[in-house]
Structure formats: structure tokens, C-alpha cells
């Protein structure tokens, strides 16, 4: 059984908002509009949305790592 570790790099974020649209439970933005991860280990039912969010990021600022639970 593996879980998903979500990290995001605000220094390369360009405020496309795609992650917030696709997985609002997991991603948010700070006052400068830069990505913030709300839930670094989201439950399994959100994994599909999180993967779509990562694929949709125009600067590939979201990194997903499979790791043991």
C-alpha cells in the first residue's frame, strides 16, 4: 500500500490557478497568488484529481511522490 506525497514549488508558480480548479481540497494560493499545498498526503479518493492538477500545471511546479504509508 502506498500513499501520495504532494509538494509544490511557489518559486516557479505562474498563478495559472489550474491546481486550485482541479483539486481545491489539496491546493490553495497565498496573497501573492502563489501555490500552497493544503494537504500533502491527500486521501486516495483525491489522487486522480491531484494527478490531473499536476499534469495541468504549465510550469510543472507540482511534484508527486509515491511513498509507503
Amino acid at each position, binding site marked *: 500500500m502506498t500513499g501520495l506525497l504532494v509538494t509544490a514549488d511557489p518559486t*516557479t508558480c*505562474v*498563478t*495559472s*490557478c489550474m491546481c*486550485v*480548479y482541479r483539486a481545491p481540497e489539496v491546493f490553495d*494560493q497565498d*496573497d*501573492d*497568488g502563489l501555490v500552497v499545498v493544503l494537504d500533502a498526503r491527500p486521501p486516495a479518493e483525491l489522487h486522480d484529481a491531484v494527478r*490531473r492538477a499536476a*499534469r*495541468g500545471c*504549465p*510550469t*510543472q511546479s507540482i511534484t508527486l511522490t509515491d511513498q509507503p504509508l
Partner: protein
Amino acid sequence: MSLPDAVDYPFAWEPPMEVPAGWRTLREHSLQPVRLPSGDPAVLVTRYRDVKALFSDHRLSRNTGRYPTSRISPNNEIFNDPEIDNDPPRYLEERSLVVRAFSARRIESLRPHVWEIADELMDAMAAAEQPVDLMESFAFPLPIRVICRLLGVPHEEHAKFRELVDGFLSVTKLPTEEVERCRVGLWTYLGELIDAKRHHPTNDLTSELVKISDEDQKKLSDHQLQHWVQTLLIAGYVTTASQIGTSMAVLLHRPHLVREVQADFGIVPTAVEELLRYQLMGTSLGSLRYCLEDIELSDGTVVPKGSTVMLSVESNFDEEVFTCPMDLDIHRRENNHMSFGSGIHYCAGAPLARMELQVSMEGLLRRFPGLRLAQPGEDLPRVEGGFLGGFSYVPVRW
């Protein structure tokens, strides 16, 4: 590897409601030489995977005014200001001042205001004699009122502003001196706007940019400030207007899709996204870049140093990425299209444009349940010689 013969760009839309047949075969070659409207040469990167990679490749410069880059047209200065540094790190510093206004939360807070504008425009449509031109009565006035409010342009100056932008953006349609008059007029107007906000700040993005810039030891020069405000105005207006009207025309041309949306307005965001991918209004001219070093594409073809490069929005039809790409599928789930670009130059106004498109589609189809084209979609005229290729006239009835 030899390249195919050069073709004229942008591609002709014949018939006007269909994606040009040539786009099916475009990706047989990873690099397609083209002639721009100016007659100057460029190369078009055709495949999605290359386009996506090159949008993040620093060997392509956006400083098209600093290098011997091919011109889009002989008399258009857009993207060609040599005083503006459009490459990192400077570009990113300046951009970061602007994009905070386009966070998901700030855009959502504007949504009720966009609904208000849409309702007002639809009230006027309802009172008018049919058919009504959707472009003139809705698609153009909506985004200009939104962006003018965002930037603090007074209501009584919208018409003057619109005339200047329309002239400035005309790539080949107007005589050189007329485009120049509009370019200078717009630039002067924006200088005056910034000056006014400096002395009498109001609650808008221009005032905020002036304040940030002045507080931080003139972080932006007046020229840079003016350039950013101009970019936001132009980008926030014409592209959105064209996409609102053209995407509605494309949808109304397919009444069964209209009924699907009306049966479940929850699919509006997905439908808007698919109509963005389908791109009946855009071209790749906005992606013009200058190649600083030889760049090898995924199949080994080399983009030569010194060439002018376009990253194709036509890659939205790459079957390697999109299932049945020539079909308009308003339920398409994974839709990472290139219509807003990719990488660090990703359209800063994309969240605003998406919201305006969603309000427009839902608003029009709710308010006018019988909305339909008043003449066959195949007969709708296209914008001639403009930077964008959408429809210029979309008569509707309900």
C-alpha cells in the same frame, strides 16, 4: 532532415465552422516553415510534446524587439518594444507584481460583478430588435467593461479606448499611418491614466501597481508600468471578446450541444475549456520567439539558431495527446490545451478569461433558452487581417 515547403500563415478557415483540413497533416513534419503576414519567414513547431517543452526552454527568447526577429506585419509594434525585457529574471520579477490580481480567490470575487454586467447587456439585447449581433451587443462590451473596471479606466472613456485598441491591433487591415496614430494615442492615454492614478489613487490594479512601484524605489519605470497596463488591457479585451462570440457561434451551430448544456449547466466549465481548445479564433502569432541556439526537437529535427519560431496552438489537435482531436467534445475531461500557452509566459489573464467565458455561456443560454444563429454558421464572416481570426458578426435570435 529536409523541411517541407513554406506555407502562408495564419491558415485559412474554409469552411469557417471547421478546423482547417490542413491541420490533420500538419504534424507529419515536426517543423513547418511558414510566411508571416509581413512576408517574413518563420518556423512553426507542430507537435504538442515539442511545443510544451519549448514553452519552457530559455534558448527561445521573447525579446523579439532586441533580435533580428521576423515581423508579424510591417507596421505593427506589438511584442516589439526593445525597452521591455521579456526574458527571465527581469520578466518574472515584473510579472509577479501583476499576477497576484489573478489568483483564484480574487477572480472569484469579481464573478458577481461580471454577472451584473452580463445581465445589463442581456437586458439591452432583450429590448432590441432581432436579430441582434452578439459580437457588438455582448462579446465586445463585456470584457472591456470588466478589464476597465479592474484597471480603473473611467466608464466614459471606454469607447475612446476601444477605438484605439482596435486600430492598434489591426495587423494588416488599416493603413500604416492609422495604426501608428492608434498606437501613439493608446500609449499616451495610458500614460495619462497612470499619472491620474498616481495623484488620485482608486481601488484598482493600476493604482496598486503604481503604489507598489513607487514604494519600492521605482521598481518599475514609468515606461514598464505603461507597458504592463497596455498588455493587460489588450490581452484582457480583444482575445476574450473574440473567444466569447466565436465560441458561442460554434456552440450555437451545433444545437444538440446547446441542449446538452441547458440540461446541465454544471458542464459549462468543461464546455468552455473544450471551446478554448478548439480555437476557432486564435493563431500562433502570439507565441513568436527568437531562437538563440540550435534546438533539437524530439524527432531530431533542429530548430536553427537565429530563426523566428512559433509554438503552435494547432498542437491542440495532436492525436498523441487528445482523443479524437477533430471532434468538439464538450465533456472532454483531460484538456491541457495550449490556448493560453505554457511555461513562464502562461497567459496571466487566463483565470479571468475562463470566468468571463463561463458567465457568458451560462448567462446567454439561461436568459435566452431559444438562442440560435440567425444565419447559417457557414455564412458567418471572419475578421479580416486582424491579429485574431474569430467571427466579426454573429447575428442571433431567440
